[in-house]
């Protein structure tokens, strides 16, 4: 983590009331996760103890402790998606990527995360790939999305 850059992002919210969540989102947006090294910076900026900052980071599911893969795939596993077979879809994707929910592939290409409802419950099952929503996702659609993303990162590399 670039400490100077982290400090700059934190300073941007110095005058915001209740600033810790906006600061954490800014750090995660910048670095993809919230580095342990950011804890003392946040504590100092907000006059909190490091324990308090740690407590907040660990409370929320969103904040990652490690850098994610190049692509983040969030699959909904709430009830509406369950009624349309999301558990089978998740099994299929886990097998295809050889990871379990919450893990990153060995090549660093994908992080697979569960999400509880994307508000796309009339077009279940639903997922979010790098922030882009997809609905009525079949195993075939998921395969195509994954392969397309793999090709993209192949080109970048």
């Amino acid at each position, binding site marked *: 983590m670039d400490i100077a850059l982290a400090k700059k992002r934190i300073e941007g919210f110095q005058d915001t009331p*209740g600033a810790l969540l906006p600061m954490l989102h800014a750090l995660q947006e910048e670095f993809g996760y919230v580095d342990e090294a950011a804890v003392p910076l946040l504590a100092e900026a907000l006059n909190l103890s490091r324990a308090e900052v740690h407590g907040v980071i660990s409370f929320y599911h969103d904040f990652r402790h490690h850098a994610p893969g190049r692509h983040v795939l969030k699959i909904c596993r709430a009830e509406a998606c*369950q009624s349309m077979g999301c558990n089978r879809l998740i099994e299929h994707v886990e097998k295809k990527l050889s990871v379990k929910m919450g893990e990153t592939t060995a090549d660093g290409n994908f992080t697979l995360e569960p999400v509880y409802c994307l508000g*796309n*419950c009339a*077009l279940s099952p639903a997922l979010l790939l790098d922030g882009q929503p997809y609905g009525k996702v079949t195993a075939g659609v998921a395969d195509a999305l994954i392969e397309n993303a793999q090709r993209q990162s192949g080109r970048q590399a």
Partner: protein
Amino acid sequence: MKIYVPCDSSAVSVGADAVARAISQHAITKQRPDVTVSRNGSRGMFWLEPLVEVETPKGRVAYGPVTPDAVPALLEAGMLDGKAHPLCQGLTEEIPFLKQQERLTFARCGITDPLSLADYIGNGGFRGLERARSMTSDAVIEEVVTSGLRGRGGAGFPTGIKWRTVAKAQADQKYIVCNADEGDSGTYADRMIMEGDPFVLIEGMIIAGRAVGATLGYIYCRSEYPHAFRTLQRAIEIGREDNYLGSAAGFDLHVRLGAGAYICGEETSLLESLEGKRGQIRPKPPLPAIEGLFGKPTVVNNVISLASVPIILDKGGAHYRDFGMGRSRGTLTIQLAGNIKQGGLVEKAFGLTLRQAIYDFGGGTASGRPLRAVQVGGPLGAYFPESLLDTPLDYEAFAEKKGMLGHGGIVVFDDTVDLAQQARFAMEFCAVESCGKCTPCRVGSTRGVEVIDRIIANRDREKNLQVLDDLCELMLDGSLCALGGLTPYPVMSAVKHFPEDFHARN
């Protein structure tokens, strides 16, 4: 020639962006400068998304579902001139799903460009605010009390009474907080309003601010809704540019992003989170209306509650109250979800039965298999069997059947569902999302998963069913908030209505 392609994230999830691009490209290559593509909100008929509408002299003509692959053939068939095609649904307003609704809160959603103030004002926007400005703050509150509006987030507390409490409180600063942490599975009405008609929410919050004497508002939007968050950010900027918001207007507004904690939909947790803390619930009293955000008197209302305020002020509280039944007044935004043929948003006066919603509007299951269970009200709502489908959608009628209307989401399951697994999931979800403040919820949910696992594995089944019953009673009576307190609803309703999934398996 105006063509409408929704920018709603659900429509985008099935290709609306690609469809809009293809139509724009076609207009360029075929030299049709008369064709403009406008991005509207969603009409809420999601099985037809992407729903493309074409403006004609007779009204808007709908085509759907228009997948990106279907675009070339549709253009060839003359879609841009409203010509016939198997995907043509006729005039949008005449589609029975839409025609049979009573759209008050969603009057504009899907018709306008969500970020066009001209569209908003041209379709009745800010009339409620204008009327509120001509009234005393007490009269505004009385109008909301008269309407009978009850909190649409799920608790059903009378909105006007809450406002009255905050108005009476003395403080140097008061806040309006919009709970946009719509975490219940099967619900998307808040998202649709935020993405499809954000100014109606902003107008509702400005009116609330005037009524109770608050000068600052926050919208707490869940992070799972990145599109809604961006739309709100932009709408607030536009509101400031046109002096509806900002210090000169006497009311300013900020949108904040949640961080993936379901519990932050509970109002005191949400306030903690807004203050930058762990989203742990606060014991009540004190009520947020007396000591809320940063210890100041705070109105905390759901998106749909606040978005219903402008029409109540515009048409009068009595007009709104005349819809509905019993103590549930006005309209309910029903969200049909899960295994349903025609999933979508139905705004209708309270009193429609579950069966009418699922069959008359929803057309039954998507899979075509028999319906077996329905979960109403999100992950804390009860599972109802077929025999309870004649229950009217009304707060009291649902409570009588040991269910909960919640935020109006209806998730349909066909006969492949295993209710023991659903009960297990309810406990698992509670364990994942518990804030940890009280023991019945924090520990009870984990023990609940273990007990259900034993029941499923047929280990001392009858004894463990009794343990589960005791545990649920304890969670119901002993939890501090609705998460631990209502998780027993899906669990016990599953055991009660679907005993065959618990007793007779193996």
